[in-house]
């Protein structure tokens, strides 16, 4: 058996051993429902409050702000946008997001657009960086909320949140930030950065799956989208996932304590990986911003070949990676992020998403750089495309570009 190397942390992260230990007592020993008055219940209630503090410290939230635990970042994003839009309907019906957002944002605003809301998707440049002038222009007197992600999981680009929040704050419009990919990787200070709401995912912090959180700044009111017993300040009903929340809290604390150390480690691996691959393979290009990118992300596209084929060959060598290729998406459409950045459909086919994690080593990166080039050569030998035979020769053949551009 070849050693399995996970370069696909954007899809799943192994839970930290210390997190698992912190959670363990809350499955059997401390089983109480936090809503119960008895001691077992109160034990759980205290554990949740502790996790709230741990999570708020990761993003430098104030004790008067709220951390609302959810079932994950998708729910946090839904809650932020739907909850805010419904609550503030009388102030306007316009929402601004960017082209790079996660589908839990894009599909939520699409849904809201059927309920009488309208939205704009602000365009991005070739690196996936949001056009702040376009953002400024998109604001109308009907705009009630702006939602922009911090870091992009797929291509790694980090958005200039300080600039964006200045624009939002000058217009007195709250800013929601999807920080799923950036939290624990780069510092976040919601107060300094002028952020009103922020979404987090536990698994991306090396915590358990199925838990997330929405930060709401003091004074920001949202409407619940799940109704019931009034847990989580009445915003998110349902008996709390105590062990999961404890796990997310522990993960947040570790992520905060080790932030610099981990980021330095990851940046080292990432830069070696990018340099090594680009040096060894021609017609390979980095996607996303060359400098302002997440410490753990390398997204590289290879001309003339398709990503699922690369992925499958790599997995036969033990490397677990992801691709932005249309062939692996549920809708068979290419990544909406790459298309927004001006990458063509054919080019998007050959994009590999490499997302590193704490446990990866330089040795593994070196091995990857050895294993990859022959795979690329082999697949290119199979492809009818080359420098002399570009894809656009066939553009006029019966291609139907009518698919929706969503990719999970």
């Amino acid at each position, binding site marked *: 058996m070849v050693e399995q190397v996970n370069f696909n942390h954007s899809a799943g992260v192994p839970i930290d051993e210390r997190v698992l230990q912190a959670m363990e007592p809350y499955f059997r020993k401390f089983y109480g429902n936090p809503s119960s008055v008895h001691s077992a219940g109160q034990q759980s209630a205290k554990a949740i409050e502790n996790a709230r503090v741990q999570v708020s410290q990761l993003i430098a939230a104030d004790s008067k702000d709220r951390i609302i635990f959810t079932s994950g970042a998708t729910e946090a994003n839904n809650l932020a946008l739907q909850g805010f839009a419904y609550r503030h309907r009388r102030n306007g019906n316009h929402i601004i997001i960017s082209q790079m957002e996660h589908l839990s944002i894009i599909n939520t605003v699409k849904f809201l657009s059927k309920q009488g809301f309208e939205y704009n998707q602000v365009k991005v440049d070739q690196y996936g960086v949001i056009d702040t002038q376009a953002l400024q222009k998109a604001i109308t007197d009907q705009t009630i909320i702006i939602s922009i992600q911090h870091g992009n999981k797929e291509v790694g680009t980090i958005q200039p949140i300080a600039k964006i929040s200045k624009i939002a704050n000058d217009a007195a419009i709250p800013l929601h930030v999807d920080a799923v990919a950036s939290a624990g990787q780069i510092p976040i200070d919601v107060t300094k950065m002028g952020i009103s709401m922020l979404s987090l995912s536990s698994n991306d912090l090396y915590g358990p799956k199925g838990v997330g959180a929405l930060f709401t700044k003091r004074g920001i009111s949202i409407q619940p989208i799940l109704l019931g017993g009034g847990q989580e300040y009445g915003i998110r009903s349902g008996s709390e996932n105590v062990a999961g929340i404890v796990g997310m809290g522990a993960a947040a604390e570790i992520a905060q304590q080790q932030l610099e150390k981990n980021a330095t480690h990851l940046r080292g691996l990432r830069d070696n990986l990018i340099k090594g691959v680009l040096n060894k393979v021609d017609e390979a290009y980095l996607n996303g911003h060359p400098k302002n990118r997440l410490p753990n992300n390398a997204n590289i596209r290879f001309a003339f070949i398709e990503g*699922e084929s690369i992925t499958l060959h790599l997995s036969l060598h033990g490397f677990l990676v992801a691709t932005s290729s249309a062939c692996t998406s549920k809708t068979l459409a290419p990544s909406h992020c790459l298309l927004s950045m001006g990458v063509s459909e054919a080019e998007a086919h050959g994009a590999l998403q490499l997302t590193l994690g704490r446990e990866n080593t330089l040795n593994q990166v070196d091995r990857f750089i050895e294993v990859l080039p022959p795979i690329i050569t082999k697949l290119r030998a*199979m492809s009818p495309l080359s420098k002399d035979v570009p894809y656009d020769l066939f553009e006029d053949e019966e291609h139907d570009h009518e698919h929706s551009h969503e990719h999970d």
Partner: protein
Amino acid sequence: MYTQKVIEHFTTPRNMGEMEDADAIGKVGNPVCGDLIWIYIKVKDDVITDITFKTFGCAAAIATSSMITELTKGKTLKEAYQITRNDVAENLEGLPPIKMHCSNLAADGLHKAIEEYLEKTGRTIDDIK
């Protein structure tokens, strides 16, 4: 998600590469995902004596290209024209449902190559039916 057979054809594809003296080439694009297959054929007395492929596509596209060349070699034009995507998928011991469109592409490529050849020799598909 793929059968052993698919993986095997994907990692060691048969009849892969360009054919310099091909009698006809079937070039098709996949309307679903945008991928491409080129099928090259050499024909003698209406028998496909040699066949190769080049593919820009997923593992299923590569494996189906490889399989269709295996199924076709030595067949008459008429027999080859009757090969369907189901024949390809069956011989690969199945394909995931979302990948059936890739086997379509291989079959389309073969059919196109045969049509091209017939056109060159002043015939249509009805002439060999």
